[in-house]
Every structure is written in structure tokens, then in C-alpha cells.
């Protein structure tokens, strides 16, 4: 049981780390603001999400697990609204192409 849980944590956390890698590469390599924004939100949603999923079985109590889930939800909320706000502000400031 213990090994299975550990394997799950390793798998899920590694996948989360991969999405942070993807987010960083996207932020550095993509060509304009909007595509970079797209890369960024992947790290938010999936990176933190998978890390939270990986750590969930290790949370000692229901409250600790709930806190992890709330953190994920808050990161999702912040990521989606802030990316919308940035995109709108970037579009309104850019000269009409």
C-alpha cells in the first residue's frame, strides 16, 4: 500500500513538474504575448493540479486534504481571471493591427 502511494506521488508530481517545464519553455520561446499567456495557464492549471493530486494521499487529515484542494481551486481562479485581465489590457493597448 505504502509503495503504491509513493509511486502515485512520484508519478503525479513528476507530471506536474513537467508542466512547469512546459510553461517555462512556452513563456521563453513563444513569439507573442497571447501565446505566452496560453503557455502560462497550463503551468497554473495542470502543474499545481498534478502536484496537489500527488500530495493528496499524503495529507494526514481531511482538513489538510481540503486545504490542498482549495489551494488548487484558488490558483485556477487566479490564473483564469488574471490571464483574461492581462489579455484584455494587452489588446486594448496594442495599436489595431
Amino acid at each position, binding site marked *: 500500500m505504502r509503495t503504491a502511494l509513493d509511486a502515485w*506521488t512520484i508519478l503525479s508530481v513528476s507530471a506536474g513538474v513537467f508542466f512547469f517545464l512546459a510553461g517555462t519553455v512556452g513563456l521563453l520561446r513563444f513569439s507573442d504575448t497571447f501565446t505566452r499567456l496560453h503557455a502560462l495557464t497550463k503551468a497554473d492549471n495542470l502543474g499545481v493540479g498534478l502536484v496537489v493530486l500527488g500530495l493528496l494521499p499524503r495529507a494526514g487529515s481531511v482538513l489538510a486534504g481540503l486545504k490542498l484542494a*482549495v489551494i488548487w481551486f484558488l490558483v485556477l481562479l*487566479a490564473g483564469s481571471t*488574471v490571464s483574461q*485581465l492581462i489579455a484584455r489590457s494587452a489588446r486594448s493597448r496594442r495599436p489595431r493591427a
Partner: protein
Amino acid sequence: MSDFLFGASSLVLGMVALGLTRILRGPDDADRLMATLLLGTGGIAALLLLGAASGDAAVVDVALTLAVLAVFAGVAFVRAAPGEAADGAAPDDTP
């Protein structure tokens, strides 16, 4: 297991830190802000991993605080951006 979690935490931190070179390069303020936001998210993930690695349950509360406040940098940016007439800046202050 704790070594793995520490390693994952270092990796996340190192990668989002690489993303910080966007603050150096810009070109737009929005791009710079994105690098800070990525660091914010990565910081939350790194904290969670760090807390699990060291077995200190209270670290999750720190991540929780950061997550609640994560939207603020973006909101302040939009509110302060030129073109935001409500903030007193001239609306035609665009580059």
C-alpha cells in the same frame, strides 16, 4: 521519498526562475508580469512540495495565503495600466 520531494521542489523553483528572464527581456510589461505570475504559481507548488518533504503541516497554510492573494498582482497591474481612465492616467498615454 523526502529527497524526491525536495528534488521536485528545486526543479519547479529552478524552472520558473528561468522564466524570470522574461522580466529582463520584456518586451511588454504584460510579459514581465506573466513571469512574476508563473513564479507565484511555481512558488505555491514548491511550498507544497517543501512542506510535504519536511513533514511540516503548517507550510500548507502559507501556500493557502499565497493562493488567496495570487490574483492581486494582476488586478493591480490592470488597474494601474495606462488607458485605465478611472485611475487618473491620460487615456491616450499609449506607446
